[in-house]
C-alpha cells in the first residue's frame, strides 16, 4: 500500500532527521578519537594507510635486494643483512600488506554495498586494527635494531629452530604472525557477520554484490586456514623458548610437520589475498562495460569452489621432500583443478566486456593488465603443479617469477585499479587520469621487466634466496635487466603517490557517483556521512542503482537518537531486528595494548602470559561493562516518536 506525503513537510522532517543522525553518529575527535573511534570507514582508511606504508617499506627492501643481485659477487649487502631483508620483505608483503589491505576494503565497502550503517562488531574492528598495528611496528622496530627475522617468510625448521637461529629474531617473526592473524580472524568474523545479518531489505542471497561474495569467501578461508599457522608459529615459539620438541627429530618431533602446518595455511593464504581482488574486478568491469555482469551465478560458484579447492593443494609446495607417488598424483590433480574456476571467471569477464562500448579509464586499464599478467602466472602455476616439472623449478627464481605474477598480477594490479575506482568515494575527489595511465604503463612494463626474466633464470638453475652468484653462472645479464625493471616499477608506484597527494589537494571534485556505477556505495555522498545512509535503502535488484524505480518503498522507524541499524535474515534479507551498534570506546585499544604487551614480553619469558591473561581479563571486563545499550536505553525511550514523516503504514516486509 502507499501513503501520501506532503513534499515540503517531508523535506523539513528529512533535515531534522539528518541533524539528529549527525549528532548520534558523531565521531570523537583528536588524539582521543584516534584511539576510540569505531566508524568502519575511519578504521578501514587507517588499515589502508598503514598497509600501504608497509607496502612501500616492503618495496624498498625489494629494491635493495635487486641492487644486490644486479651484478654477480656484489658486495652491497652481506648475507646476514640480505637474509633479514628478504625475510622481512616476504613477511611484510604477505602479512602486513596483502591480507590487511584486502580486509580493509571489505571493512570499508561491505556495509556501504549492503546498505548498513556500520559493521556488525565495530569495537572488535578497532581491536583488530590496533593489534595489527602493534604487530607491524614490532617487526619493523626489531628489523631496524638488527633483530629482523632471517629464516625466510615461511621460516622452515630446523633452520628457524632453537639450534640454528640463536637470539630473538625468529621469535619476533612468530609473534608478529600471531598479531596479524588475530586481526585477520577478527576482520573475517566482522565481514561475515555484517554480510550475513545487515543487508538492506530485498538484498536476498542471489542479489549480493560479487565484491561482497568475494569478501565472504575470503573470510571463511581465513577462518579455516589461519589456525594452522597459529599453531605452527606457537609450536615454533615454544620449541625456542621452553624446549618443547615438536620439531626435534631426536625426540620424536618432525621437521616436515612444520611444513604441512605452514602450507595448510600458506596455500589458502594465496587465495585469501587473491579472491578479494577478484571482487574488485567484477564491479570495475560492470561499471565500465555499462552492462550487467555475464554469468553472475557461475562467478559466485567459482569463487566458492576456489575457496574449497584452495585447501586441497598445499602439498605442492613440498614435492621435493618428497611425497609418496599416490599423494603426488592427488595434489597434482587438485592443483590443476583450481585452474577451472579461475578460467571460468576470466571467460565470464571477457564475455562481459565483449561487444559493450568501453570507456577505458585507469581502473579498467589495471584490470586489463591483470588479464595479461595473471593468466601468465596461472599458466606457470600449472607447470608447478606437475610433480616432475616442479622438481626442477621448485625453489628457483622460476617460482619467484610465478608467485609475483600471481600475487602482483592477481592482487596488486586490481588493487591499484580499485584505488583509482574508489578514491573518489573515499575523498570526494578524482585521481588524475593522465597520471593514472602513466602509472599503469610504468608499473606494467616495469613489472614484466623485473619478473619475466626470472622464469629464465630459474630454468638456468638460479635458486631463490641467494644473496649473490658467481660470474661463471652467466645469470648477470638477466639479473641486471630485472634490477632495472624494479626501478621502473618503483617509479610507477611513485607516480601513484604523487597523483594521490595532488588529488587530495586539487583533484576534480567527484559527485556521488562519478562512474555511473550500480552498487549502493555510490548512492551516498562522497565521502559518505558517518551514518552512511539517511534512509536505509530497499533493494529491488542485483544492481540497486540501475534498477531502482521511482516508487521504491522507503524504510522508516529506525531511531535516529541511538546508533540503530537494521538486522535482516540471512537468506532473503527480511527485516528482523533494530540492532544497537556500540559507539566509541577506549577499551578495545586497551585490550589490544594488553595483547601486545603479553606477546612481546612472551618472547622473553613465559610468565608474561600469566600477567597478560590478568591484564586482558581486566580490560575485557571494562569493555563488557561499558555497555552501549545501557546509555542508549534512555535515549531510545524518547527516540520512538522521532518519525514525524512516517505514518505507521503496516506494510509487511515480505511484501517488497
Amino acid at each position, binding site marked *: 500500500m502507499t501513503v501520501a506525503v506532503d513534499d515540503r513537510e517531508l523535506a523539513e522532517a528529512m533535515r531534522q532527521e539528518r541533524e539528529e543522525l549527525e549528532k548520534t553518529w558523531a565521531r570523537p575527535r583528536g588524539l582521543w578519537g584516534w584511539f576510540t573511534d569505531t566508524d568502519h570507514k575511519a578504521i578501514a582508511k587507517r588499515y589502508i594507510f598503514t598497509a600501504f606504508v608497509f607496502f612501500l617499506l616492503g618495496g624498498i627492501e625489494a629494491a635493495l635486494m635487486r641492487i644486490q643481485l644486479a651484478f654477480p659477487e656484489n658486495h652491497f649487502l652481506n*648475507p*646476514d643483512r640480505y*637474509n633479514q631483508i628478504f625475510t622481512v620483505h616476504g613477511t611484510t608483503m604477505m602479512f602486513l600488506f596483502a591480507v590487511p589491505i584486502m580486509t580493509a576494503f571489505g571493512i570499508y565497502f561491505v556495509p556501504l554495498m549492503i546498505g548498513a550503517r556500520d559493521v556488525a562488531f565495530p569495537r572488535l574492528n578497532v581491536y583488530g586494527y590496533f593489534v595489527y598495528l602493534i604487530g607491524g611496528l614490532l617487526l619493523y622496530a626489531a628489523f631496524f635494531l638488527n633483530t629482523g627475522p632471517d629464516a625466510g617468510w615461511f621460516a*622452515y625448521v*630446523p*633452520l628457524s629452530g632453537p639450534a*640454528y637461529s640463536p637470539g630473538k629474531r625468529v621469535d619476533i617473526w612468530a609473534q608478529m604472525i600471531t598479531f596479524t592473524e588475530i586481526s585477520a580472524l577478527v576482520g573475517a568474523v566482522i565481514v561475515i557477520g555484517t554480510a550475513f545479518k545487515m543487508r538492506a531489505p530485498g538484498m536476498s542471497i542471489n542479489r549480493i554484490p560479487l565484491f561482497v561474495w568475494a569478501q565472504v569467501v575470503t573470510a571463511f578461508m581465513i577462518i579455516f586456514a589461519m589456525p594452522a599457522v597459529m599453531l605452527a608459529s606457537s609450536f615454533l615459539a615454544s620449541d625456542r623458548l621452553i624446549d618443547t620438541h615438536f620439531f626435534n627429530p631426536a625426540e620424536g618431533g*618432525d621437521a*616436515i610437520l612444520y611444513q604441512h602446518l605452514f602450507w595448510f595455511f600458506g596455500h589458502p593464504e594465496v587465495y585469501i589475498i587473491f579472491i578479494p581482488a577478484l571482487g574488485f574486478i567484477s564491479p570495475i568491469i560492470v*561499471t565500465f562495460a555499462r*552492462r550487467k555482469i*555475464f*554469468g553472475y551465478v557461475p562467478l559466485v560458484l567459482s569463487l566458492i569452489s576456489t575457496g574449497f579447492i584452495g585447501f586441497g593443494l598445499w602439498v605442492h609446495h613440498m614435492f*621435493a*621432500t618428497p611425497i609418496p607417488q599416490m599423494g603426488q*598424483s592427488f595434489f*597434482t590433480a587438485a592443483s590443476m*583443478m583450481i*585452474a*577451472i574456476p579461475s578460467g571460468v571467471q576470466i*571467460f565470464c569477464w571477457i*564475455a562481459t*566486456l565483449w*561487444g559493450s562500448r*568501453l*570507456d*577505458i*579509464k585507469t581502473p579498467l586499464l589495471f584490470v586489463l593488465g591483470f*588479464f595479461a599478467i595473471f*593468466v601468465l602466472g596461472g*599458466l606457470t602455476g*600449472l*607447470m608447478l*603443479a*606437475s610433480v*616432475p*616439472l616442479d*622438481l*626442477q623449478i*621448485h*625453489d628457483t627464481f622460476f617460482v619467484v617469477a610465478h608467485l609475483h605474477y600471481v600475487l602482483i598480477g592477481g592482487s596488486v594490479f586490481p588493487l591499484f585499479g580499485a584505488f583509482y575506482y574508489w578514491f573518489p568515494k573515499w575523498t570526494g575527489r578524482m585521481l588524475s587520469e593522465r597520471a593514472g*595511465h602513466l602509472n599503469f604503463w610504468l608499473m*606494467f*612494463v616495469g613489472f*614484466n621487466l623485473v619478473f619475466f626474466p626470472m*622464469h*629464465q633464470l630459474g*630454468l*638456468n*638453475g638460479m*635458486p631463490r*634466496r*641467494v644473496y*649473490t652468484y*658467481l660470474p661463471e*653462472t652467466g645469470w648477470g645479464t638477466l639479473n641486471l635487466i630485472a634490477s632495472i625493471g624494479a626501478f621502473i616499477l618503483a617509479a610507477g608506484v611513485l607516480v601513484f603517490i604523487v597523483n594521490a597527494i595532488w588529488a587530495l589537494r586539487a583533484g576534480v571534485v567527484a559527485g556521488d557517483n*562519478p*562512474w555511473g556505477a*550500480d552498487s549502493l556505495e555510490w548512492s551516498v555522498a562522497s565521502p559518505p556521512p558517518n551514518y552512511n545512509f539517511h534512509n536505509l535503502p530497499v533493494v529491488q535488484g542485483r544492481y540497486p542503482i*540501475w534498477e531502482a524505480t521511482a516508487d521504491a518503498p522507503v524504510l522508516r522507524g529506525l531511531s535516529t537518537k541511538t546508533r540503530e541499524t537494521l538486522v535482516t535474515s540471512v537468506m532473503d534479507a527480511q527485516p528482523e531486528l533494530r540492532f544497537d551498534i556500540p559507539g566509541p570506546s577506549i577499551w578495545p585499544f586497551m585490550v589490544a595494548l594488553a595483547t601486545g604487551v603479553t606477546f612481546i614480553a612472551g618472547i622473553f619469558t613465559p610468565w608474561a602470559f600469566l600477567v597478560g591473561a590478568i591484564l586482558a581479563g581486566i580490560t575485557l571486563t571494562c569493555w563488557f561493562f561499558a555497555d552501549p545499550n545501557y546509555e542508549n536505553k534512555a535515549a531510545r525511550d524518547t527516540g520512538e516518536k522521532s518519525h514525524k514523516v512516517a505514518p505507521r503504514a503496516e506494510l509487511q516486509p515480505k511484501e517488497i
Partner: protein
Amino acid sequence: MSKTTRTIPRLILTLVLALCFASCFSSCGGIQNAINPAGPNAANISRLWWLMFIICSIVFVLVMIAVLLSLSKRTTEAADRVPVLEPSEESERRRRNVVVSATTITVIVLFVFLIASYSSGRSLGLNDPTKNGLSIEVTGHQWWWEVRYQDVDASNIFTTANEIHIPVGVPVMFSLRGADVIHSFWVPNLAGKKDLIPGKINTMWIQADKPGVYRGQCAEYCGFQHAKMALWVVAEPQEQFNLWRQNQTQQAVAAASDVQKRGQQIFFSTTCVMCHAINGTPAGSNIGPNLTHVASRHMLAAATLVNTREHMAQWIKDPQTFKPGNRMPQNNLSDADLQALVEYLQSLK
C-alpha cells in the same frame, strides 16, 4: 588518449610474446640448466617442460586475442551518460556457448597435462638401479657437501667433498641426508631436486649420458652461505672413473720435500687439524671436508673457487671474505708457513 587505449592489448601481446620467444631461444647451453638435459631424468622432465610451454603459450595468446577483440567497441563520453546496455537474448546465448566451450577446452588441456605429468613421473620412478653397484651417500652440511662412496668391500669406501664423479651411462643411486638443517640436492642438467632432511634419508638415482661437468647447487635456503653451497658432478667414461676411484681409495701421499713436511707439521699444530681429516695421518676430524685428495679436486670452498695455489692460500688465510659466515675461521699464519701449508695440501693428489 583513446589512441593509447587502442594500442594497449597489442602492446601487452607483443611485449609478452617477445619475452616468451626471448626465453625459448636463450634457454640452451649452460652447465647448470634444467632444459639442457644430459641424462634421462632431466631429458624426460625437459620434454614435459616443452610440451607445457608450447600449449600454455598457445592458450595465453588465444586469451590475449580474446581480450583484444573484446575491446573493439569504445566510447569516450562520460560513463554516466551512456545508457546501461541490455544485451539481447541470443547474444547472451552466444556468450554462454563460447564460455562453456572455452571451459571444456580448459578441462581437456588440464587432463592432457595431468596425464603427461603422471606418465613422466612414473618413468622417473622406474629403472631401479639398485642392481648396479655404485651408490653414493651425500650429506648436506652448512655449507658444503660430504660425499661418501659406498661399497660392499669396506676398503673401497671413501669420503670426499663437493665433487662427485660418476661413470657415464650408468644409473647411480644417491642417498641423501641432512646433517644440520634442510638442504636440497639439485643438479639441473641431470635430474630434479630432492631435499636433504635431518632425521630422514631420501634416495634418488641419477644417470649422465654424455661426459662432462655439471654444476649443482643447494636449492633450499639454509643460512648465510646458501648462495655458495655448490658442487660439481663430473661424468666420465667408466675406465677413467675407475682410475679416479682407485686413486681416491688410497691413503694420502706422504709429505716428500722438506717444505711439505713443514706444511704437514703446520697442519697438525694449528687449527686445520681440529676440523679436517687426511686419511693415513692422525688427522681424523670430520667437521670439515676430508682433505685426503684435496689437490685432485677442481674447485675449493664448495665449488666457488678454482683450485689454485693462490686461491687456496687466500682461502686459508681469510675464508670470511670469500664466504662471510662460513664455518672456517681466519688463520693468521706467516707467509712462509702459509706457503708451506699450501705446498703440502697441493701435494695431496
